[in-house]
């Protein structure tokens, strides 16, 4: 059986753990198969969980979150027969498949949409805990905005510096209001549970918001411009489907691979005009073809479009 390990946020984190969970559920429903799942309780457990799962014969073992990288590096060689899949980090071992998402590309797209939807030409970004991953989101977004609207203003806030920053909808709402008061009329939240407060505050103030990770358009139909989806669910689904025959090696899932994108559904079809859709698809093509190069924050820890 395959296995899935969620990182510390837990499987209902409204973010990518939850997306991974959804992928696994989909696989179960479609194949009728079963899988093991674990939620991390503490840092020290990572190794324990990996080894125990490997010893019980689970294969492949999928884990979400860069925090597993270091541990997997050590554990993987001890279980050459087992395949591991790590999402959001690169581990160079023969039996490991590393899946990275080009969050900057998806964020770039929603940035373009935000710039087009914005009347004030001021848009906002609200991150959760201030970590590089979230900066990657913010940076891609800012580039997209600037690409579309070179003199647009981008307001960016991080919620905090402790894990509490992922679960503070009150502060999320307050940051949103602060950005609204500075003119923002589209706000992109990459902040886990805090994002719920962001989307709520935006809906209350009748401005647009952008969800993240999974499709959050349904949370406030007609008020969420779109969501930057990161198809962790697909990655998990594919890994589970491939089973023990999984191909290892590093893989970056960007726009081209359908790993990231923007969500369009009944809830936001009135918000995304034909013009916007044409434009964003065009930009998407340009990114895929390399015509537009989206700067990767990780490459040099700087962002050309936004300062943190």
């Amino acid at each position, binding site marked *: 059986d395959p296995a899935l390990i969620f990182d510390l946020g837990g499987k209902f984190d409204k973010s990518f753990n939850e997306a991974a969970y959804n992928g696994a559920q989909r696989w179960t429903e479609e194949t009728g198969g079963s899988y093991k799942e674990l939620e991390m309780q503490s840092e020290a457990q990572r190794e324990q969980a990996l080894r125990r799962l490997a010893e019980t014969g689970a294969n492949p073992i999928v884990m979400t979150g860069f925090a597993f990288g270091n541990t997997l590096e050590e554990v993987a060689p001890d279980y050459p027969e087992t395949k591991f899949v790590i999402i959001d980090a690169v581990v160079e071992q023969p039996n490991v498949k590393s899946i990275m998402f080009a969050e900057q590309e998806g964020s770039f797209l929603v940035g373009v949409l935000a710039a087009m939807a914005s009347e004030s030409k001021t848009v906002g970004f609200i991150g959760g805990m201030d970590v590089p991953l979230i900066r990657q989101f913010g940076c891609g977004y800012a580039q997209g905005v600037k690409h579309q609207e070179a003199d647009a203003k981008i307001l960016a806030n*991080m919620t905090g510096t402790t894990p509490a920053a992922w679960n503070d909808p*009150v502060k999320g709402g307050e940051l949103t209001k602060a950005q609204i008061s500075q003119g923002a009329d589209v706000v992109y939240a990459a902040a886990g549970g805090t994002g*719920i407060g962001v989307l*709520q505050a935006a809906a209350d103030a009748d401005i647009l918001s952008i969800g993240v990770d999974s499709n959050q358009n349904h949370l406030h139909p007609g008020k969420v411009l779109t969501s930057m989806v990161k198809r962790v669910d697909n990655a998990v689904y594919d890994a589970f489907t491939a089973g023990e025959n999984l191909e290892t090696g590093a893989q970056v899932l960007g726009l081209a691979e359908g790993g990231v994108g923007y969500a369009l559904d009944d809830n936001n079809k009135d918000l995304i005009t034909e013009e916007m859709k044409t434009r964003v698809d065009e930009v998407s093509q340009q990114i895929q073809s390399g015509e537009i190069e989206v700067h990767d924050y990780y490459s040099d820890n700087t962002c050309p479009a936004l300062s943190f």
Partner: protein
Amino acid sequence: MDFATIIQILDSAIRLMTPLLLACLAGLYSERSGVFDIGLEGKMLMAAFSSAAVAAVTGNPWLGLLAGIGGSMALAAIHGIASITFRGNQLIAGVAINFLASGLTILMGQRFFGLGGRTPSLTGEGRFGEITLPLADTLRNVPVLGRIYADLISGHSILVYVAFALVPLTWWVLFRTRFGLRLRAVGENPASVDTAGVSVTRLRFAAIAICGILCGLAGAYLATGLSAGFVKEMTAGRGFIALAALIFAKWRPWAALFSTFLFGLLEAIANRYPDLDMGLITVPSMFMNALPYILTVIILAGFVGRAIPPRAGGEPYVKER
């Protein structure tokens, strides 16, 4: 900084300070009666959960509020039984309450709603809406004062007005009524109350019950006023900040208003200016985030001086050892 920005920052400060103020006043009643309470966080959290849960199910924020108070009171009762009836360590009881709330809210949330501890989002009537005070819209055009009235004073949830009204009320209860006199006495010297023929136990339980109610309001405001539902651990340390504000205020109601406002204001400023560009260097966002805490320490060291807690605080009242 223009006028509109100032109004916006103050407006934000008011919203951010309200839960702190309610929790701070809650702690004030409890600690003035001689029962130290580091369980404010837990009670708020429990109240946030139960109010959101009931409001989600019934669609009525008022029922939610009642449930919030109920949830917080249940924990207050535990605190009372442990620290008054059984003369246990008040601090330990508070720590236990924080853990209890943190676990139980998610456990119950998961059991009832299956959303990993969240409650369903509240919509429309399910939340406490913003109240527009009379004439707010007509007066908005009056320069300065009109703006202040319309944009700063008007337009908050009912619980904000309740919280502000509670400040003079608390002052009045504490310093102008029999109950307040006895409450203060029991926190300073319970034997004086006992020898006057008044029950120390009853007074302290009453104080703790009020503390429960106010924490209930605080939690309900977080979950059904400021946000639209419960998210695990959503109090995010506000109980501890409220406790700090209480000490800061030296256990006085008007000073509590001031100290919680200060915390709210500092946070609002940090929100508004996530990274301060100071010409040569840009203050990184992490430090802007920590700014409220750094400033608190500086103010505390520079201007506040020694805060003397109620003399009998922290000690169970024991006649016979």
